[in-house]
């Protein structure tokens, strides 16, 4: 099968998707009635008035917490397959996972004692 014939269906999907998008978007823009008011043009914020500019700076402690969350959270991924296969892996699996969790625990203690979890400072 030639390359073109092979990818023709994919190309057609793209074209159809683009056509549908264009139809709805252009249809709305051309046919719909426009009646802009100040309220309608506001950024949506749950019915409240918008406060502050858009360039607000978030405190750096959010960054630190988020990073710590990501790192510890991703490590938990290894525990799921181990838990599913717990019986089959036997004591070797248990010992390996214990070592892994102890290492994570030491890391947690380290983070804690270093003050990275202090929210109020």
């Amino acid at each position, binding site marked *: 099968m030639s390359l073109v014939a092979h990818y023709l269906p994919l190309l057609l999907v793209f074209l159809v998707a683009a056509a549908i998008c264009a139809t709805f978007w252009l249809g709305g823009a051309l046919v719909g009635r426009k009646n802009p008011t100040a309220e309608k043009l506001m950024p949506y914020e749950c019915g409240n008035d918008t406060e502050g500019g858009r360039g607000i700076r978030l405190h750096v402690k959010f960054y630190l917490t988020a990073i710590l969350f990501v790192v510890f959270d991703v490590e938990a991924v290894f525990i799921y397959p181990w838990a599913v296969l717990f019986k089959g892996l036997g004591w070797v699996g248990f010992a390996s996972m214990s070592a892994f969790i*102890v*290492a994570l625990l*030491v*890391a947690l*203690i*380290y983070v*804690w*004692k*270093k*003050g990275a979890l*202090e929210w109020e*400072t």
Partner: protein
Amino acid sequence: MTWWSTLFAVSPLVVVALGALLLMLAEALGRPAPAADGAVVTDVGSGRAGELGIGSAVVLFAGGVFALSLWMVGPEALPGAEGLAPYFIVDRFSAFFGVMLCLGGGLSALLGGGYLDEHGIDRSEFFPLLLWATLGAMALAGAGDLLTLFVALETMSIGVYAMVGLRRNGRAIEAALKYFLLGGFAGALTLFGAALLYGATGHTDLAGIGASVGTIGQPGSTVPAGLVLVAMALVVSGLLFKVAAVPFHMWTPDAYEGAPTPATTFMAVAVKCAAFAILLRVLFGAFADERVASWGTGWPPVLAVLAVATMTVGNLIAGRQESVKRMLAYSSIAHAGYALLGVVAAMRSGMGQASVLFYLLAYTVSTVGAFGALILCGRRGAEAVSYEDLAGIGRRHPVVALAFSLFLVSLAGIPATAGFFGKLGVFLAAIDAELYVLAVVGLLNSFLGAYYYLRVLVYMYMREPSPNAPRAVPMRSGQVGVAIAVAALLVVWWGLFPLSIGADVTAAGSAPMAR
């Protein structure tokens, strides 16, 4: 009890990992909690970094002793060790690198203890990072599977990124940023190459990949040759980045110069040696088949060109530097070129791999010593960086200057030092592999290299500092002194009696690279 012998087989790694965990606990629990108002308590000059430096050096030397005892017992005699392959290959090669990396890491830790104390850098996380990075390097030297290769490579690299940016000043962070961005890019190249190799062959272990690559071109083979070539190029490029070979060397001078000197030492020594270890494993474990490893096709001609380019570019630019630290960075690029020459020679010569191993060993002790001496030449607030800073050191501080000279002479490859036999071995291997042109180019390059090493000697012994220039006053540090003494002893020992470890190097170099 296979269980115990398995544990013994990985004991160097276990010792370093346990030591790293203990050190992290000691570092976190032993420090006063931050004051309530959030001000960071500084204990500058309290000697804390010194204690942790000694602690991590002890851990690493213990790891080295375990690796050495593993070598004595003989990895092939251990019943349980085979079960770890291919994820971690226990053989003479990995035991040899275990000793070498623990030596390099331990000496860097000693330099770190002295350096951080003297310069009042209150960042004792340096030492756990160093231990974890060494662990990654040791795992990398034993990796026989693309999975462990990637994880170990990143364990080592991530630790070093943080070590480079340890001092939070502009230069250090800039160095860390450059190293991180290019290092991450190289890691991604290696990983994508690994993924393509897995797709092409269905294997992630180097031995299985090697067997599949061997079937290319035979009837019934399903291995796509083009994909394997692309994958090999990606994997090898990523690794060449770590050894700082031209054209993947751009990060090296900046990262080496901006990093605190002990971190530079670690990068120059442990990272480079571990990267060469895995390069040998990949090339001779997975890509040793003549379809990808002959002089007509595959990697040998490419690597030969890169080896020549690496040593020539490194030497030429090193000669033009005004900063000694930056000169040493370019010189480490040049040294990667000589070692690559040995890698290429190993394609046809039985002594090629052994020559690379001895070269790396000699390079490790000489480089640690040179950076250690450079550290020793500077004081707090007045680090010795440029040639001018070293003027007159030879007369005013003869011991420091003598040690520095010894290491530079060894790096230049002048006889009666370890570095001479390192270069000799590589050139002999090249001649043995009938690569006469490469051997001649290497020889010419070592004359070129001698110029800028000896220039340091000229400044130390024959120049006086200009009257109003700040005079270099060497710091005093027992730890740095011990590290330099150990390095000097080994440089002289291997320089006078290179045959004392000749058989060991040959045994390590002749182990099959993948199983």
